[in-house]
């Protein structure tokens, strides 16, 4: 049977004014709501610049993509900025297929 990698989130604030959210494991149907809830909490606080480190994500399904879109939309609704600072080639390919690479702020 397929073993799942647990989904983990870690919030760091290294540079003043910027919150870094590090995600790892499987961001999928079972875990996507965790990210949405977490993002809600961050934006309802005073987070104005959110950076996402996605390099530890092993798998993202359509629900995971939806959660990332929801974080992006939540940021936009509150005039905050969301930037993806690190990702895997698998995710870059996925963002390309879904054309989200033209929406999300991705590292070069």
């Amino acid at each position, binding site marked *: *049977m*397929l*073993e799942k990698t647990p989904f983990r989130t870690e919030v760091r604030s290294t540079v003043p004014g910027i919150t870094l959210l590090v995600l790892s494991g499987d961001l999928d*149907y079972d875990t996507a709501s965790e990210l949405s809830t977490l993002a809600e909490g961050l934006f309802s606080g005073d987070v104005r610049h959110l950076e996402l480190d996605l390099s530890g994500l092993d*798998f993202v*399904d*359509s*629900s995971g*993509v*939806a959660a990332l*879109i*929801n974080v992006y*939309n939540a940021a936009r609704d509150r005039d905050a900025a969301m930037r993806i600072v690190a990702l895997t080639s*698998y995710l870059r390919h996925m963002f*390309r*297929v*879904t*054309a*989200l690479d*033209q*929406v999300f702020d991705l590292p070069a």
Partner: protein
Amino acid sequence: MTTARPANGTAGTVGVAAGDLAGTPAAPDGRLLRAIVEACGEGVVVCDAGGVVVMVNAAAAGLMPGLAPGRPLTSGAAGALFRPDHPEGDSRRVDHGRRRLLVRRESFGVAHRAWYLRDVTAESARTGALLAERHRTRFLMEAGRRLSASLNTRRCARVTVELAAASLADTAMVVLPPGRRQAGWVRATGGRPLQEGTVGTAATASVPGLAEALAGFPPVPSRWLDPAQVPGWLLPEGFGPAGHLLVTPLPGNGVPAGALVLARREGGSSFDEEGETLVRVFASRAGAAISAAALYQEQSATNAILTADLMPPELPAPAGMELAGSLRAAQQAALIGGDFYDVYLPEPGGPGEPLVVLGDVCGKGARAAVLAGQVRHCLRALLLVERRIERLVPLLNRALRACPSPNPYVTLVLGALRAGRDGHARVDLVVAGHPAPLILRRDGGVSEVGARGPLLGALPQAPVTPVSVDLAPGEVCLLYSDGITEAFGGPGGREMYGARRLKDALATCAGMPVAAVVERLEQISTDWLGGAVQDDRALLAVQARP
């Protein structure tokens, strides 16, 4: 230890033989014996060979006031206790008025018999209560075990009446929650086959207490229900008149799951308070089981309706082309993803080309099934006013953006099929957030269609550019969902199948009929998964007729 016994003990006050002081055992005299018998907690009655009482101690006189020396033992109400055939040394339990006595007979020589009486009323009651409690517990455990074994309402109702008829009453009926016209029932009667039937909803009102129980009101005590009013349909044929009736609601999850009707024959014991309590506890277990089964059945039926929206259509064969598809839904209902494909043919004689769509909606389970159904119906409606695929996609995006359900995101490939010259087929494609289709050439070359666009439902704009693909006879355009490429499996079990392997597998299919191509790819994908948990997997292939 007699030798060490001090002379001034309590026994000394009634007189002790002088020899005792010297340390030699001596028989107690009559007065001492009398005192010993009097002090005994057990009742002692001594009678002579003729059955005349010669001695009665206080305990025996307390239990049987009629006993007195000089009277025959068997006179008066106590006669039944002292039966001449009572085996010697044997203890028997005998009910005497409200008491239960343990009676033992001993013989002393030929002249005397002694009867020992012990009041065991309280002890028996405790033992009886314990046994009854054990019996009730065993019954409820058995009920719990058997009721939990089924998720079918009828089967749960059958088990309920079988258990009730075996332990609680002469006949037991479960009346299921009535519909607008009728209510189903199941009945068990000791020693007869189970019966099932229906009764008009109005007729349920003729059973005392049933309408209230079906409405979920608490049960009324059995003694308030008049068994003479029971209508004929309630009892099995030849049952005889009911002597006692008990109607108990079967409480479900917030709604009544029906009612349990118990009847005992005339002359049988009535339902006492403890019995009614047991029935209520039993009914609450049965009600929970029946309502859980009802909910499950309802949910299964709903799931079946919902997933019907994901069922692929029968594929037509448009002019000059062959179509083949495969949709493997995830095995668990809750994991059903939203993969779908569909074919839209123009109205006979109407304008336009056949369209194919293969898509994947966000999420899993019923919500995904509903969304997939919405997308398919939405496309069908939009096609009435717009057949250009590059216009259809932005329209669908707008429709999804207006959709109130959470995450109404869809990725899809939409293709318009046209027969070309010399047996060629032309496929115009737009891709919206979906893996781009693959093209299999006659020489085994495989390429990816260079089209892409955003997933739908998430962004205000969804511009797409159509790409045209020309298929020579036998060549294939393959639409697939990411369930194929993102299938985890392989030798290590956690390797993604990936687009590379899919392309390689497709390359081996050159020259095959399109149905065989789809079947082969599906088989390879299934082998890769090796029985692992799987997402939906969809394949739809278009081939220019070879």
